[in-house]
């Protein structure tokens, strides 16, 4: 539609509002225009209508309208005129028709306008929606672009790092390679040097060897008292080719024996392992075969294969003898069948596990029933036992009461403490024995003391005799010094005996204590005859804690003596005691005594 332009009447300025432009202008403008156009229409209807056609210009307006209508295709408003110059009459029918036509058209136009307006609205809202979507998508695109850039940046950084690390690794590897090369080159260098030096060294060695061999050194010799027989008792034999061959034969025999032995071991091991595998297979089959009777869910595959294996079994059993051979196919068969069985067993066990877990979840009813039964049985048994015990206790109580009540006064007095009677009698016997022994001991003690007193008296007398004898000797000797003569005499007398003792004691160094103690009583008896023991020695020996000394100590204690002998003699006695006792005490406590070191000198001379 083109632009409608109405002829502007100078009076009708409102007509300009009707200029409708059908351009693609924004809907609001259009609406506005339409609204503007519709509103003034209702208000200015009358004014508008009266503005166009007044009383004066009726003819003009009719002709104008007729012109307009005819241009629009409507029939003319005038009647058909007969002549040219006569006035045309208004055709009212035509006018009414035209008006009706115009009204219909107006209505259509209005409808169309409404439709267009609604469509316009719809399109407008769609457009809004699309625009908002577009804006959102644009935002999203922006953000995703930004993210992508960020990720790219990160990726780039990581790649950089990666490259750096690779580079470092390469550098390290290169360094390692370089060092290895250096080492290798140095090694070759050193080897070369070493070889050179070795060759020099060998040359020198050769020369030296020649010199050594050439020198007819009479000293290189072997002196042997007599020839020693060969270890195996045979005579030596000459070296010949035959002996060489024999040696080779022996060597090969040894090697072959070793290989055969090892092969036997390995075969035995193999046979055992095969047996074990076969047993395992049989057991597995037997484990799996009863399962085919029970209905197991989802076990069709396994039972199928299980059955097939069971069918295989009798066939395989007949071929067992073939398995003793160890060719490839048989070996593989065995291992494959074992693997199959094992897989089946594994799947079966897993299924059982699942079942068990399901049962656990459902409840413990079955278990309870079983355990309760056992529990009841147990309690019955225990109750029976308790009853039996109670009966036994009752009977015993009755018996005891009978025993207690059925006796008379006489019997009660007799039976008082009847249980302990035997023991009392025994005690009495022992007491009497003990008293007798005591009496005997007393008697012995008295006799011993008397003997000791006698002995003391005798000793005194003897001492006096000896003293007088010594005095005589003294007076006889004029050239010797007094002390020296005594010392020498005494020492020689004692050392003689001590040496003998030392020899007898030390020739058997690892004797048991009782032997040594045998020596020491002999020693003591000799000494007691020659010299009474001094209190210092007895004190000393008592302080020693050696157990093996007991016999010697007890012998000493039997002769308590107050008289002090010659000081030198006493010291000698000290030394003797230590010497006699030393080998008996085999721990290091003898080191506590300072003067044993002097004795060691004496000892060593005595050793063979």
């Amino acid at each position: 539609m083109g632009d409608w332009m109405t002829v502007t009447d100078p009076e009708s300025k409102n007509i300009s509002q009707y200029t409708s432009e059908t351009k693609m202008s924004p809907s609001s403008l259009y609406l506005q225009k339409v609204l503007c156009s519709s509103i003034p229409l209702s208000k200015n209807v009358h004014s508008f209508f009266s503005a166009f056609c007044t009383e004066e210009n009726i003819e003009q307006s009719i002709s104008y309208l007729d012109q307009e209508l005819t241009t629009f295709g409507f029939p003319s408003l005038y009647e058909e005129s007969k002549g040219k110059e006569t006035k045309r009459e208004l055709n009212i029918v035509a006018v009414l028709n035209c008006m009706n036509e115009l009204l219909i058209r107006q209505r259509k136009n209005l409808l169309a306008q409404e439709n267009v307006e609604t469509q316009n609205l719809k399109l407008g809202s769609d457009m809004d929606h699309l625009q908002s979507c577009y804006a959102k998508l644009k935002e999203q695109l922006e953000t995703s672009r930004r993210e992508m850039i960020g990720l790219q940046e990160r990726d780039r950084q990581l790649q950089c790092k990666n490259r750096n690390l690779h580079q470092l690794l390469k550098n390290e590897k290169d360094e390692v390679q370089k060092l290895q090369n250096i080492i290798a080159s140095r090694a070759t260098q050193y080897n070369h040097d070493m070889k050179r030096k070795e060759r020099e060294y060998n040359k020198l060695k050769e020369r030296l060897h020649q010199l050594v061999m050439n020198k007819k050194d009479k000293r290189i010799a072997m002196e042997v008292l007599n020839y020693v027989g060969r270890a195996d008792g045979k005579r030596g034999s000459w070296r010949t080719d035959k002996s060489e061959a024999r040696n080779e034969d022996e060597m090969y025999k040894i090697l072959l024996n070793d290989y055969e032995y090892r092969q036997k071991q390995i075969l035995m091991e193999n046979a055992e392992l095969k047996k074990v595998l076969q047993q395992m297979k049989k057991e597995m089959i037997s484990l799996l075969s009863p399962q085919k009777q029970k209905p197991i869910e989802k076990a069709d595959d396994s039972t199928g294969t299980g059955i097939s294996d069971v069918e295989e079994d009798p066939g395989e059993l007949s071929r067992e003898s073939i398995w003793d051979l160890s060719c490839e196919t048989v070996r593989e068969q065995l291992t494959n069948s074992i693997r199959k069985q094992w897989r089946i067993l594994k799947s079966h066990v897993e299924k059982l596990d699942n079942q068990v877990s399901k049962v656990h979840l459902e409840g413990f009813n079955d278990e309870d029933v079983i355990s309760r039964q056992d529990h009841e049985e147990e309690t019955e048994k225990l109750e029976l036992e308790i009853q039996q015990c109670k009966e036994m206790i009752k009977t015993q109580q009755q018996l005891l009461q009978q025993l207690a009540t059925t006796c008379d006064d006489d019997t009660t007095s007799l039976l008082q403490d009847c249980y302990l009677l035997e023991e009392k009698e025994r005690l009495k016997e022992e007491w009497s024995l003990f008293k007798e022994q005591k009496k005997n001991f007393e008697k012995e003690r008295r006799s011993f003391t008397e003997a000791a007193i006698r002995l003391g008296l005798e000793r005194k007398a003897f001492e006096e005799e000896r003293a007088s004898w010594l005095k005589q000797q003294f007076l006889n000797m004029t050239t010797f010094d007094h002390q020296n003569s005594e010392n020498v005499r005494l020492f020689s007398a004692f050392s003689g005996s001590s040496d003998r003792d030392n020899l007898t004691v030390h020739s058997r160094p690892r004797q048991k204590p009782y032997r040594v103690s045998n020596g020491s009583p002999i020693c003591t008896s000799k000494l007691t005859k020659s010299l009474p023991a001094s209190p210092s020695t007895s004190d000393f020996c008592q302080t020693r804690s050696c157990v093996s000394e007991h016999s010697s100590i007890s012998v000493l204690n039997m002769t308590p003596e107050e008289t002090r002998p010659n000081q030198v003699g006493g010291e000698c006695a000290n030394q003797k005691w230590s010497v006699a006792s030393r080998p008996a005490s085999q721990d290091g406590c003898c080191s506590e005594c300072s003067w044993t070191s002097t004795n060691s000198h004496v000892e060593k001379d005595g050793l063979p």
Partner: protein
Amino acid sequence: MYKRGLVQVWSLEQPEWHCRIDEGSAGLVASCWSPDGRHILNTTEFHLRITVWSLCTKSVSYIKYPKACQQGISFSRDGRYLALAERRDCKDYVSIFVCSDWQLLRHFDTDTQDLAGIEWAPNGCVLAVWDTCLEYKVLLYSLDGRQLAAYCAYEWSLGVKSVAWSPSSQFLAVGSYDGKVRILNHVTWKMLTEFAHPAAISDPRVVVYKEAEKSPRGALGRPACPSFRAAESKYEIAAVPVSLQTLKPAADRANPKIGVGLLAFSPDSYFLATRNDNVPNAVWVWDMQKLRLFVVLEQLGPVRSFQWDPQRPRLAICSGGSKVYLWSPAGCVSVQVPGEGDFQVLSLCWHVTGASLALLSKDHFCLCFLETEDEADGAIGQLGAHT
């Protein structure tokens, strides 16, 4: 008597029998018996040659070019064969001799840089050969000279320090400078397992025995025994986790004190005793049936040597003090060597029957008799001018 180049031999059964061998200007560096007890092998100075003196025939044989290394001579257990390491023209060779008539049986070269040691397997059929410590290489040769296998655990680091065969010839234990022992099996000659020796033990199944002094205290709280008598000691069981004393070795010196330096199998092959040189006070005993650590014994002083009883699984250890320590699966005990003064046990040696033990100090030795009531008796003797 190495300085004078003299070897003197006496007979234990006939005191009048006596033999003297004089090497004269050739000098003497080492001397050893042959297994039949009738020949003496003397190594002359500079390892020029080995002279084999026969006591039966007074004859002499010479072996040239022996190698001067840690363990260059090895006799097989049954005494039939002698393996000798040689070096000619900067290459290592091994010669196998038959001991009965000293004939050369086999002579083959080995693929080593610088052979450090050889050892026969107890079954006499396999010879283990190992290279210098600069390279980890263990080679196994059969009796007839074929190479059976070669084993190398790692490169570029110090290698093998010590090697031991198990008495059943089933295992070969290789101790190396990285503080681990690798066990090779005799069927495939591949590593079965490796035993590490860390200084901290955390496995609760391991029993750790620590030696502790138990000096008797006097009334004043000071030890009552005088200073020249060594204190008694006993073993206490320490609760796991335990950390042992370590020694930091000097890294720039030769022969550093790291690595497994001593290895010994028990006679029934059930146990392996090892010593890691950086933890010098401890002896580690491994259970070979379960292939794991069984017992650790920590002494107060550094362990000098240990040896298994040839008849039963009983280990005797000495650490330079005056005590000898015995361990068996039933327990362990520390025994004071009786004697005057200080007897420093430097090494020990069991008798073949396992009933007695010789403890050697610098110039004395002590014979220890083990009675069935587990009492140890001692007798002190003077060593001769040898050793």
